[in-house]
């Protein structure tokens, strides 16, 4: 039976916890930051590397490595930007952190800023998250009032400012380079890479973009003994606890903090309380709507980066969407594909045309106009977006299409074979 391991949610799970600065400090907050100010930035990066933490935004890139890539001695300022755009369907973990324990995230953000030599960090928050934006702004105000932000936090002499910036409601602005364009006041569209943000990011300066949850892990990792403890929460290369957004036809949906060596079955049937109304499991979308779908037979697997990659899907943002035997898979795929057609920025050809076209084909099935030929075509159009686009949104649209067609062909056929 899976149980929560409380690192990030330690305060949140405490019913008496007060998320104000005073409350956070009372729970031991900002002690790690004080310790970090006594370290050299390189040492901080080294510890983060050793912890093995991989980014929680979706790509799972090692955070320590990312920070070590930051161009140095460029004569330009360096930036750290927190990616709080959380819009991957099914994902709702960053929102929990920002709303319920903003200072944990902010302390992590400040540690990150110090590590990469950033004196002005930006928090790019999804535009629809009004309460989270307000909470963050209030928390940042508290920090300025306390002197924790400004010219001399904790007597460190390390000038540090934070700005909360609200997005305008585009999924694509969660992609890091589109996020930076948007932050610069431009139309949010992914940039050509290279150059990567670590070389040329915000306003052409070295920039690290990190997910909220990734940053929220920092106060723990850099606390005394934190690296070893963090490593102990999962198999090699899949260290730490992570926040799992569990949704769909389970009895107990929610955001849970789990180790990385928990079996998916245990998540669904243990902590998730099993399938609603005693129904049977049909499949799971394991890592946000961009990941390849899994069938009920495949869920006996450890829920982490490497194990899911082995079976050709991915952990992504750790958003598990569970669906039962009554689910209309074609409708589900239609919903997902409609999302990508709506959210594609449109600049590159396969994604702009392919997302919309595939959505039209799926709609044909729903309208009773499906055929074997169209099923083949759907698979082909999906495949033509895979690996052919500028940013990963093309892949994100292609993977569900291809995996649904492959794993649930009968569901499509039901719509036209009578």
């Amino acid at each position, binding site marked *: 039976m899976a149980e929560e391991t409380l690192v990030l949610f330690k305060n949140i799970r405490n019913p008496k916890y007060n998320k104000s600065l005073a409350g956070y400090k009372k729970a031991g907050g900002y002690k790690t930051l004080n310790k970090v100010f006594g370290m050299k930035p390189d040492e901080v990066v080294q510890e983060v590397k050793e912890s093995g933490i991989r980014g929680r935004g979706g790509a799972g890139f090692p955070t320590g490595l990312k920070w070590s890539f930051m161009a140095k001695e460029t004569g330009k300022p360096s930036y750290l930007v927190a990616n709080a755009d959380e819009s991957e369907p099914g994902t709702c973990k960053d929102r929990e952190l920002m709303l319920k324990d903003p200072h944990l995230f902010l302390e992590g953000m400040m540690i990150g800023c110090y590590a990469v030599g950033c004196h002005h960090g930006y928090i790019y928050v999804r535009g629809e998250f009004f309460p989270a934006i307000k909470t963050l702004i209030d928390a940042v105000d508290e920090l300025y009032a306390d002197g924790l932000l400004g010219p001399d936090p904790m007597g460190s002499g390390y000038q540090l400012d934070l700005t909360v910036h609200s997005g305008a409601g*585009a999924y*694509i602005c969660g992609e890091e380079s589109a996020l930076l364009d948007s932050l610069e006041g431009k*139309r949010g569209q992914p940039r*050509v890479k290279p150059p990567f943000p670590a070389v040329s990011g915000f306003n052409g300066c070295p920039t690290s973009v990190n997910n909220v949850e990734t940053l929220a892990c920092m106060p723990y990792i850099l606390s005394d003994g934190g690296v070893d403890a963090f490593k102990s929460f999962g198999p090699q290369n899949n260290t730490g606890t992570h926040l799992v957004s569990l949704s769909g036809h389970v009895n107990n949906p929610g955001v849970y903090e789990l180790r990385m060596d928990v079996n998916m079955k245990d998540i669904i049937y243990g902590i998730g309380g099993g399938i609603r109304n005693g129904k049977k499991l049909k499949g799971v979308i394991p890592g946000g709507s961009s990941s390849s779908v899994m069938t009920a037979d495949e869920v006996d697997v450890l829920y982490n980066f490497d194990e899911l990659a082995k079976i050709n899907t991915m952990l992504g943002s750790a958003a598990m969407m569970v669906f039962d035997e009554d689910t209309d898979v074609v409708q589900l795929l239609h919903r997902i594909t409609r999302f990508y*057609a*709506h*959210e*594609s*920025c*449109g*600049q*590159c*050809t*396969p994604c*702009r*045309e*392919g*997302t*919309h*076209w595939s959505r*039209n084909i799926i709609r044909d099935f729903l309208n009773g106009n499906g055929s074997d030929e169209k099923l083949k*075509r759907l698979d082909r159009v999906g495949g*033509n977006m895979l*690996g*052919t*686009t*500028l940013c990963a949104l093309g892949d994100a649209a292609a993977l569900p299409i291809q995996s649904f067609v492959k794993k649930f062909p009968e569901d499509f056929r039901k719509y036209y074979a009578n």
Partner: protein
Amino acid sequence: MPVFHIDGEPVEFEPGEKILSAALRRGKIIPHYCYHPGMSIVATCRMCVVDVIDLGNGRPAPKLQTACSVDAAEGMKVDTMNQKVEEGRKLVNEFLLINHPLDCPICDQSGECTLQDYSFEYGSGKSEMDYSKRVYGWRDIGTFVSLERNRCIQCSRCDRFTREITGTNEFGMFNRGHELTVDTFTDRTMTNKFQGNMADICPVGAITEKEFRFKRRAWKLKKNRSICTGCSTGCNVTIEHDRNEVFRLKPHENQNVNKWWMCDEGRLTYRIMNERKSRINRPLGRVGENLEGISWEEAYGAIAERVREMAPLAQNVIALTDTHASNEELFLIQKLLKDGFSSDNIFCPLPNWEQIESDFFINTLITTDKTPNRAGALALKIKGDAKNAKLKEAVKSDLKVVFVLGNPFETEHDLQQKIKTAQLVVHIGAYHNSWSEIADVVLPGQHYSEKIATYTNKQHLVQATDIAVKALRRSRPEWQILSELAEALGQNYDFTNINQVFDSMSRETKAFSGLNFDQIQSNGIELAQTAKDSGKKLIKAAA
């Protein structure tokens, strides 16, 4: 220079250069839409995919790469023609066509459309798309161009043009996903002076020139390389014509002069090339109050006879020219005056002019000097000043013979009245004007689109035009008229082509010494000795 391989052939590249740019320099074709050498790289059309079979480290790239955005590297091996690449292109082309109207029969771009060409070359020839297409209305977006958004392939070249090239930001991409489209901001039309370039760089028929709309199929047009004479910049152009009618000017790339661009005003000068009403179409001689048609022999004979009657002549012979005259024409009329009359009384207007300084290169193209050869006149030391003071001084004496080339000093009416009283006024030019009205003999010259001539631009670059359209039957190029006139007046010039005139000029003048006509025809050559221009003023571009 380091080397990499495209389809087995070694290709040199500059460090940092992209695969596509190195390939194009080498004349290797890799189909592409969004890439333009003058603008930032966006790598969005995905047409330029190539297979990097060796990254230079012995390993292949995991998937097809966009040649426009990937750096060439020492030892890299690139395939541009294998099956993987062909499939990659085919899928992009299929996507581009699913919403494309394919109205080639009524599309002005047809024949010079890369979408059409690539679809033919790399497309599959059939479509599996059976939904209705995306449809937008036609938009009037500017003074010079119109927008047919249905044909747009969202390559964003136009968008980057007003951001990066003109800096006017009047145009942009709107909406997202499959509704992504280009437009001006609500209810506005573009006012920048370089809109025609947007039609040039638009790979399809989405942005087209209003002037050219529905006038001629592109494949009918014959093209001659020339230069624009609309101002002293001398943008390199092709004159595009069919059946002796000119339809448009297009910029021709010259990195030293205009890069890829030209201004709309320059494009509009094509109109004058088709102008017939005001042309002088045969030699004319004054009989009483009227000008009457005569033959070339009669014209030259009449001039020679009058000059003989008045001999000896010297300071009372002058020549007036404008700076539309070519280097050779200026040289010849100067030579004629010197050899025939020992006179150096040749004058041209040299009004002050302004050169814009700007962070956006394209703004520096247009100058307020609307003539192509001021620098040539200065180099040849033709007399003149901003206020025409020198000429006014010369006109005070008793004038006997006046040669007028083109349409100089057209607003100096008092001067004209004075000159009218000279014994003999000879006008040489392509168009009727106030000089031909008062002239005793009128000799029909040619427009620059009808002759070969060289002009010296504001950078002291000597550039050549080419014969694009047939001249009027009874006209002659000015260099020929001047040399025949000299012969009639007893000189032994014997020039039979423009090269000989140019050679003579390079022998006899300091400014053009050492220059060779053949070298000029490709990209122009800078004068070794440049003349100072005191009438030039630098002004900052308005922000």
